[in-house]
């Protein structure tokens, strides 16, 4: 492969923007990338690493405000940054095609998807007009969209996230490009959808010999699709080489720490936190960007900027001391927290909860008409012990966030009750709860950008619960705030800052502090790590774990990420379309015989393991809502028994002590 000229060559590019005081701040420093025909390269990095900028720059495109100060990008020996618009327009879409991150927003809302694909065909291929629609159908079939005839006449907003992404891939393929550039194409999609799309990309790569540049923060996705990988940190490439080798034994401290911080289903350890944050874009760099977070940093690392060196194993590594790498553990040495199950009284009891989003008109209300659609959430019976962590897993539509909102009092129940450990009933409406009840249950949200008032300083944010529940003021209030900040490992100087001055991880810690400052008994965590970078996630999980041990807090932890749930939870409940499928201890649910849906989920999880094989037993069709009768999983279940699944609600079956599933299949047959 080395004898052939490369398809795309990025030569030492340096990209940046002019900061407020006029300095040139670099987003990418001296980055090189070579892509050969048929090759697939992954670019891995977290937020701020510059990976998206690199992907777009590889096409010769810079976002508004950025400029190229050094280097060049050559595609097929043409320097992309020196070509005029019309030449670039032949290349864009025709020879280099982009699959964007959020197709829902990247497809024009006023044009049907078929028309958008035809636009690409018109621009880049020799297809004659009478063949347009049949070509579109062919392409949609290639990306495995069911009912292509119907889909091609739809508007983008009428399709699900997974369908939109496939359309984007079809549109990229339509120009018959030499290479695809994919910018986080599966972010935001469900676990199963993600897995299917990655398989599709693998197939495309192998059958068409398509070259690919795949940008992602998810090492598991990269492991699936790419032969080679470049790890980016703070605008530089710090490690390059074969994916297999790098995932097994990375030679750069950052890559190692990153790998160790990812919670894995397979490993036993608790993910290891990586403290600190990457440096902001700056001018010249006089030291190793990772030095302040590195486990093997020496004095040279703080004074001299390391260059990429070729190691004996063929990888390129930007480190002064690659020989010391063995000192950093490959996977986390932190032991998993001890599970406590069934040893304590229930802190919270949910009995036959049923929640619906449907609104009934005034007339319906007067006449007492029933609801037309089945409730969003139904028949939920759960209890959580004091000090226990209950994980709720499921994909979109599973109702897990809805249940949390109801416990918090923000969403009224259709029927059922919630009771506390002293047996008293928790009023469903937050306005009817008394101060004690309000204090004892606290909620932490997913997105720290939105859950903290941007106009309040940190101390004001923390003051709210203190004033409301304890009536504290003045110096006592401030002191208490300082104390809680210490517990979440933030120093006193954060008190007077605004959220916009904090990083994502820091903001989430403030949100956690705000919840714990009320001294709650139950903390509801709604996807609290999903919006954070991987390495930051581990730190937050560690924090949650520590707080739990110190205060004996009960958690209900909602997440779509199974590995994260496994790391933190004692017991797990699996939900599908608002109904319970399986409930048991973490150990039992994640191993051994399980509910068919749990199997589907587990088979689709992407681990950063190059030898991992996915077990895709069900396809990723979109459910519009729960079925009125029978098992919620009836439409997709690979082990459907027959009409019984559609007619009768599945009974509870006990697999082990305290481990039950709801399925018609008997225990022996599973």
């Amino acid at each position, binding site marked *: 492969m080395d004898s052939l000229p490369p398809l795309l060559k990025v030569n030492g590019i340096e990209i940046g923007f002019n900061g407020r005081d006029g300095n040139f701040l670099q987003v990418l420093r001296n980055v090189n990338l070579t892509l050969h025909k048929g090759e697939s390269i992954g670019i891995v990095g977290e937020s701020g690493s510059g990976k998206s900028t690199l992907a777009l720059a590889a096409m010769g495109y810079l976002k508004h405000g950025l400029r190229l100060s050094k280097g060049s990008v050559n595609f097929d020996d043409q320097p992309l940054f020196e070509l005029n618009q019309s030449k670039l327009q032949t290349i864009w879409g025709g020879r280099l095609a982009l699959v964007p991150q959020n197709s829902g927003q990247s497809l024009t809302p006023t044009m049907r998807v078929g028309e958008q694909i035809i636009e690409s065909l018109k621009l880049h291929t020799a297809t004659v007009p009478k063949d347009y629609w049949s070509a579109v159908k062919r392409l949609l079939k290639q990306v495995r969209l069911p009912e292509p005839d119907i889909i091609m006449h739809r508007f983008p907003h009428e399709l699900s996230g997974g369908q939109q992404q496939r359309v984007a891939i079809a549109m990229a393929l339509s120009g018959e490009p030499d290479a695809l550039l994919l910018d986080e194409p599966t972010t935001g999609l469900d676990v199963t959808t993600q897995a299917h799309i990655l398989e599709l990309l693998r197939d495309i790569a192998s059958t068409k010999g398509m070259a690919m540049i795949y940008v992602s923060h998810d090492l598991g996705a990269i492991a699936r699709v790419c032969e080679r990988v470049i790890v980016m940190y703070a605008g530089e490439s710090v490690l390059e080489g074969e994916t297999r080798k790098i995932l097994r034994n990375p030679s750069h401290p950052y890559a190692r720490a990153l790998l160790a911080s990812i919670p894995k289903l397979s490993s036993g350890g608790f993910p290891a936190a990586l403290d600190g944050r990457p440096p902001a874009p700056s001018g010249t760099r006089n030291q190793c960007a990772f030095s302040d977070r590195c486990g093997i940093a020496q004095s040279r690392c703080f004074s001299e900027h390391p260059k990429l060196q070729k190691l004996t194993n063929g990888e390129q590594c930007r480190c002064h001391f690659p020989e010391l790498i063995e000192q950093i553990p490959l996977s986390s040495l932190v032991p998993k927290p001890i599970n406590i199950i069934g040893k304590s009284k229930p802190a919270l009891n949910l009995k036959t909860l049923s929640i619906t989003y449907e609104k009934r008109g005034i007339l319906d209300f007067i006449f007492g008409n029933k609801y037309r659609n089945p409730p969003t959430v139904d028949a939920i019976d759960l209890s959580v012990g004091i000090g226990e962590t209950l994980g709720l897993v499921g994909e979109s539509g599973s109702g897990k966030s809805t249940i949390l909102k109801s416990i918090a009092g923000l969403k009224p129940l259709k029927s059922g009750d919630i009771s506390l450990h002293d047996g008293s009933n928790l009023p469903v409406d*937050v306005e009817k709860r008394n*101060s004690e009840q309000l204090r004892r249950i*606290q909620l932490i949200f997913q997105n720290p950008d939105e*859950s903290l008032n941007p106009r309040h300083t940190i101390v004001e944010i923390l003051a709210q*619960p203190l004033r409301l529940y304890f009536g504290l003021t003045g110096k006592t209030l401030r002191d208490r705030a300082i104390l809680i900040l210490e517990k979440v490992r933030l120093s006193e100087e954060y008190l007077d800052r605004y959220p916009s001055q904090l990083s994502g991880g820091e903001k989430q810690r403030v949100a956690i502090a705000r919840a714990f400052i*009320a001294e709650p008994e139950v903390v509801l965590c709604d996807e609290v790590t999903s919006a954070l970078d991987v390495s930051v996630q581990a730190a937050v999980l560690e924090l949650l774990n520590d707080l739990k041990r110190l205060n004996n807090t009960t958690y209900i932890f909602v997440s779509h990420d199974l590995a994260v749930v496994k790391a933190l939870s004692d017991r797990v409940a699996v939900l599908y379309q608002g109904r319970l499928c399986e409930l048991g201890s973490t150990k039992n649910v994640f191993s051994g015989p399980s509910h068919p849906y749990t199997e589907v989920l587990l088979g689709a999880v992407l681990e950063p393991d190059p030898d991992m094989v996915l077990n895709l037993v069900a396809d990723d069709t979109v459910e519009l809502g729960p079925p009125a009768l029978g098992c919620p999983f009836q439409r997709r279940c690979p082990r459907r028994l027959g009409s019984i699944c559609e007619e009768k609600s599945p009974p509870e079956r006990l697999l082990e002590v305290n481990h039950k599933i709801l399925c018609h299949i008997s225990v022996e047959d599973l």
Partner: protein
Amino acid sequence: MTDLLKLFLSKILSLHQKAWTVVGDIYSKPSGAIGLTLVIFHICLAITSPLFVPYDFKMMDASLMLSEPSFSHWLGTDHLGRDIFSRTLLGGREALLVTGVATPIAVTWGGFIGILFGLVGGRIDEFLMRIVDAFLSLPWILKMLLLIVTFGSSTFVLIPTLAFFYGIPVIRIARAATHDFVAKDFVSAAKARGHKRLTIILSELLPNVRDSLLVEGAMRWSWMLLAFSSLSFLGFGVAPPNPDWGLMISDARGFMSFRPWGVLGPVVALSSLIIGINLSADALAKALGIDRTQKAPV
């Protein structure tokens, strides 16, 4: 109690500091600088003009009706022999007084109701907005004139009338701005903690909506001035012989063909003030980082 007072004072102090930064931002752009200077100039003029006007606005010199600009009368005299220059200098006083008082009242009450509607949401909100919309569908002139014709056009009638009618569109703006924030998690977090509705309005929503309201307030002021001068023009606003730009333009219209100064004086004065307010409002919006999509005035 003293603690709350200290909190209040520190808020005022930080707002004060912020206000100066904003003013600085406005002055950094040429349009903003021009605008704000014009506004300040007019305010000073309105306050101080009685002290230095060359002639009494009422004084009629029968021998000098409709005279040309001269050394003693810089802009000439109007059809009743009154000095146009003096009347132009004084013409903005009543307008600025009435609108200057009515605008903050309008923004306050409209803003509060708007935020409340935005927070409450649901059917009540929709129903009440229908009524608001129906009310807004009637031409403003009609509504105001009915009141003025019945109750007179003294300052004490004009201020509440303008404040009431111009507060209603503010409800819409405040409600829309609140909608942007109500869905955000920090409001849900406050609800989940069990804060009372009033606390949520004042503590969570208002600081976020405040900037939009400020910019809207500036624009309201300019619409109000427009309305006020239009009313005077039509004969329903300031009563003669008091000087007012709208009234002066109406009076001088008939003589425009040979004595344009009677019209030009007030035209330049009124236009410069309104343009000044608009330029300042634009600059204010940019300084606060608000993206304004222009709506038609009501």
